[in-house]
C-alpha cells in the first residue's frame, strides 16, 4: 500500500468524521426499556421537553424516554414512512389535525389497550370535557392531550389609553369591541395601515363566539346561519380596511416569536391569540402593558366561547414499548402525580387537563407568576369551547378551509359562497373516498 493511498484513506476518514451528523440522543440507562419519543417542539420548547423527559426518567426505574425533536414541516412524512416501514417511534406528538385520519388508517393504538379500566374511568371522570372530546375518536380514546389551545382577546392597554379606555372598561360585546377597534386604526400619509385595532382573519376561529359550529364527526356542515354571521363579520372588517391593505399589512406581521410578535411590536392593538402568548410576552417584554379577556360575544352569540386545537400525544401501533409510552403520557399530563403534571404543563405554558392538576402547587405558582394566564384556565372548563369535527378527511378539510378563508379575505369570494363551496367540496371528496372504500 503506497503512502498516497494511506494518506487518501486518512483524509477520507477525516472528512467523514467532520461532516458526519452528530449522534442522536443517547440512551443513558441501557438496562431500561427505551421509549423513543418524536416531538415537534423546537426553539424554546425543546429544552423544556427534554427536561420533562429527564424528570420522568428520574421518577422511575423501568423506562427511559429518549426525546427526539422532529421539525414540524417533515414530522408527518417522517412518521408515516417509519410506520409503513414497521419501525415507528414509541410515542409521537402532533398538532396537525391527524387524529381521524391516523385512527382510521390504524396508525395509532387505542389507549384502552394500554390503560387499566380504572385509569380509563378516572380520565373520563376528571378530564375537562374539551380534553376528552379532542382525545376521543369514534367513541374510543385515541390520544392524550398534552395541551389544548384556547383563544382569548389580548388588549394593548397603552394603546387603549390613547382613546380613553382602561383595563376596567374592556368591551363586553363584539359590537363594543369593533367600535373601539375602529378608533385604534392608524394609517401613514400614503394611506397604508401602520396599526390595526382588531383584525381577525379566521371565521372558523370566531364561529363559536357567534353561536356557530361545524357539525359532528358523522356530518360536517359549514353553511349555517351562525357561521355565516361569523364569516360576514370577519370579511366586513377586512373590507372596511381594504382587502389589499389587509393582505399587505398581514404580510409584514410574519414573525411569531420574540419582540416582533404583533402584540409586543404594537402593530395590533387588540388581537385574538392563544394561551401560550402570555408566557412568551411576559418573558420577552416583562413591562408590556396588556390585558387578556375572553372573546366578547356579539348579540345572540356565546360568552366564553372559543375554537380549540389540541396537541396530541399518540402511541403508534408499531410502538415497541406502548406501556412505557403510556407511563410517560400519564406523567406528562399528571394523571398519577398532579404536582408533576402541574410542573410539566406550566413549563410548556399550557393548560392542565383537569382541575386536580390546575390546583397543584406547581400550577398555582405558575398562575401567580403569570396572573393573566388565569383567563385561559377559567376558559378551559367552559361548555362553549368547541373542537372542529374529527373525521378521516381532517387534513383535506383543514386545507380547504384555509383556501376558503384566503379567498374571502381577499374579497374574491363572498362568505356565503365560501361556506356553500366548502359543503360541496367536502361532499364531493367524501363521495370519492367512499367510492375508493377509504371512508366509512
Amino acid at each position, binding site marked *: 500500500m503506497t503512502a498516497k493511498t494511506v494518506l487518501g484513506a486518512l483524509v477520507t476518514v477525516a472528512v467523514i468524521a467532520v461532516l458526519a451528523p452528530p449522534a442522536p440522543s443517547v440512551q443513558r440507562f441501557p438496562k431500561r426499556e427505551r421509549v423513543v419519543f418524536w416531538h415537534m417542539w423546537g426553539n424554546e420548547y425543546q429544552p423544556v421537553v427534554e427536561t420533562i423527559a429527564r424528570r420522568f426518567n428520574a421518577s422511575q426505574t423501568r423506562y427511559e424516554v429518549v426525546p427526539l425533536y422532529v421539525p414540524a414541516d417533515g414530522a408527518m412524512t417522517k412518521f*408515516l414512512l417509519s410506520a*409503513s416501514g414497521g419501525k415507528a417511534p414509541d410515542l409521537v406528538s402532533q398538532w396537525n389535525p391527524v387524529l381521524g*385520519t391516523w385512527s382510521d388508517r390504524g396508525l395509532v393504538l387505542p389507549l384502552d389497550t394500554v390503560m387499566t379500566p380504572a385509569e380509563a374511568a378516572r380520565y373520563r371522570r376528571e378530564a375537562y370535557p374539551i380534553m376528552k372530546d379532542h382525545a376521543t375518536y369514534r367513541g374510543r380514546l385515541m390520544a392524550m392531550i398534552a395541551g389544548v389551545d384556547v383563544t382569548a382577546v389580548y388588549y394593548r392597554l397603552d394603546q387603549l389609553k390613547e382613546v380613553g379606555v382602561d383595563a376596567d372598561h374592556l368591551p363586553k360585546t363584539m359590537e363594543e369591541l369593533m367600535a373601539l377597534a375602529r378608533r385604534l386604526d392608524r394609517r401613514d400619509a400614503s394611506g397604508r395601515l401602520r396599526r390595526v385595532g382588531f383584525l381577525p382573519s379566521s371565521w372558523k376561529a370566531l364561529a363559536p363566539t357567534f353561536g356557530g359550529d361545524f357539525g359532528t364527526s358523522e356530518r360536517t356542515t359549514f353553511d349555517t346561519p351562525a357561521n355565516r354571521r361569523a364569516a360576514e363579520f370577519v370579511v366586513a372588517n377586512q373590507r372596511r380596511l381594504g382587502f389589499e391593505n389587509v393582505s399587505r399589512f398581514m*404580510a*409584514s406581521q410574519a414573525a411569531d416569536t420574540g419582540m416582533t410578535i404583533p402584540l409586543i411590536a404594537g402593530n395590533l392593538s387588540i388581537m385574538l391569540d392563544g394561551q401560550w402568548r402570555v408566557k412568551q410576552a411576559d418573558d420577552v417584554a416583562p413591562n408590556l402593558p396588556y390585558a387578556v379577556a375572553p372573546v366578547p360575544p356579539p348579540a345572540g352569540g356565546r360568552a366564553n366561547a372559543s375554537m380549540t386545537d389540541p396537541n396530541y400525544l399518540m402511541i403508534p401501533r408499531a410502538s415497541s414499548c406502548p406501556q412505557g409510552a403510556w407511563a410517560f403520557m400519564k406523567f406528562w399530563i399528571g394523571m398519577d402525580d398532579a404536582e408533576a403534571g402541574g410542573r410539566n404543563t406550566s413549563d410548556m405554558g399550557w393548560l392542565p387537563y383537569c382541575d386536580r392538576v390546575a390546583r397543584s402547587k406547581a400550577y398555582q405558582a405558575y398562575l401567580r407568576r403569570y396572573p393573566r394566564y388565569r383567563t385561559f384556565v377559567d376558559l378551559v372548563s367552559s361548555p362553549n369551547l368547541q373542537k372542529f369535527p374529527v373525521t378521516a378527511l381532517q387534513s383535506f378539510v383543514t386545507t380547504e378551509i384555509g383556501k376558503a378563508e384566503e379567498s374571502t379575505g381577499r374579497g374574491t369570494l363572498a362568505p356565503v359562497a365560501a361556506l356553500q363551496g366548502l359543503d360541496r367540496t367536502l361532499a364531493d371528496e367524501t363521495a370519492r373516498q367512499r367510492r375508493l372504500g377509504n371512508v366509512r
Partner: protein
Amino acid sequence: MSGAARVWRQNRAGLLFVSPWLVGFLLLQVWPFLGSAWLSLTSYDLVSPPRYVGMENYRTLVADDPAFWKSLGVTLRYALVSVPLSVVAGVALALLLNVEIRGQAIFRTLFYLPSVLPQVATAVLFTWLLNPELGLVNGVLHLVGVQGPAWLQDARWAPWTLVFLSVWSVGGGMVIYLAGLKDVPAYLYEAALLDGASAWQRLRAVTLPMLTPVIFYNVVMGVIASFQTFTEAYVMTKGGPEGSTTFYALYLFRRAWDNLDMGYACAMAWVLFLVIAAVTLALFRGQKRWVNYDR
C-alpha cells in the same frame, strides 16, 4: 461458442464496471417506476395493503377533480412563460458574457452563482425581498414613487413572481449556451464578414442557427423541470394565494402526504409522466423544422 456467450465475453468487463450503476438503476428507478404503475391502480394509504380499484383513480382525476385541472393549468401556464423567458434570458446573457471584456470571468461567475445556491435558501431570501411592506424590492420601487405590488400575496401577481424567479437561476443554462457559442466555427463569421453582414445579421444568420441544438436541449430540460416545479411554491406560497401557485407537483405531494392518498398520487405522477413524454415527443418532432445540426 454461441452468440450470447460471445457477446457476454466481449462485454463482460464493461458490464462489470457499470454494474453498480445498473443495480442501482434497476432497484432504485425501474422497480419504483413499475411499482408506482401498479399502485396507481390501487387505493393505498401507506399503512394498509394496497387495494385494487382498477382505473378509478384515473377516472376521478379526469372527470371528478377540479383541483387536478387547476393545478395542471397553473403548471402549463408557468411552463409556457418561464421556459421561453429562460431561453431568451440565457442566450442574451451568454451573448453578453461571450464578449471579450475586462473581468469577463468575474461576470460569468456572478451570473452563474444563483444557480448553485440551494433552492430553499433562495426561496426564503426572496420571500423577504418581495415582502410588500418590508421588502427591499418594494422599498426601491417606493423610492422612485411606485407602489410595488403584493408579489406573493396577490393571486394576480404570485404566479408571475415565480416565473420571474425562474429567470434568477438562468446561470445553469447560460453556461451551456456559452459552451455552444464557443463551438460555432470561426470561419462562418469570417465568411459572413466578407459578405458584409452586420452584427445583427451575423447573430440571426450564424450564431442563433448554430446555437439551436443547445437551445433545443435547454428547452427540453426546461420543460421537464418546469412541469416538476415544487420547491418555490412549497416554501414561498404554500400553493396560495387562492391556489394560484398550486403546481401539479405540489398538489400531488399534498394528496400523497396530507391525505395519505398514495394510489391517487401515483396516478397523478403517471399522468404527469405522460404529459411530459407527449410534450417532449412533440418537441422532438418539431425540432426538425428549426434545429440546425450542420457543421
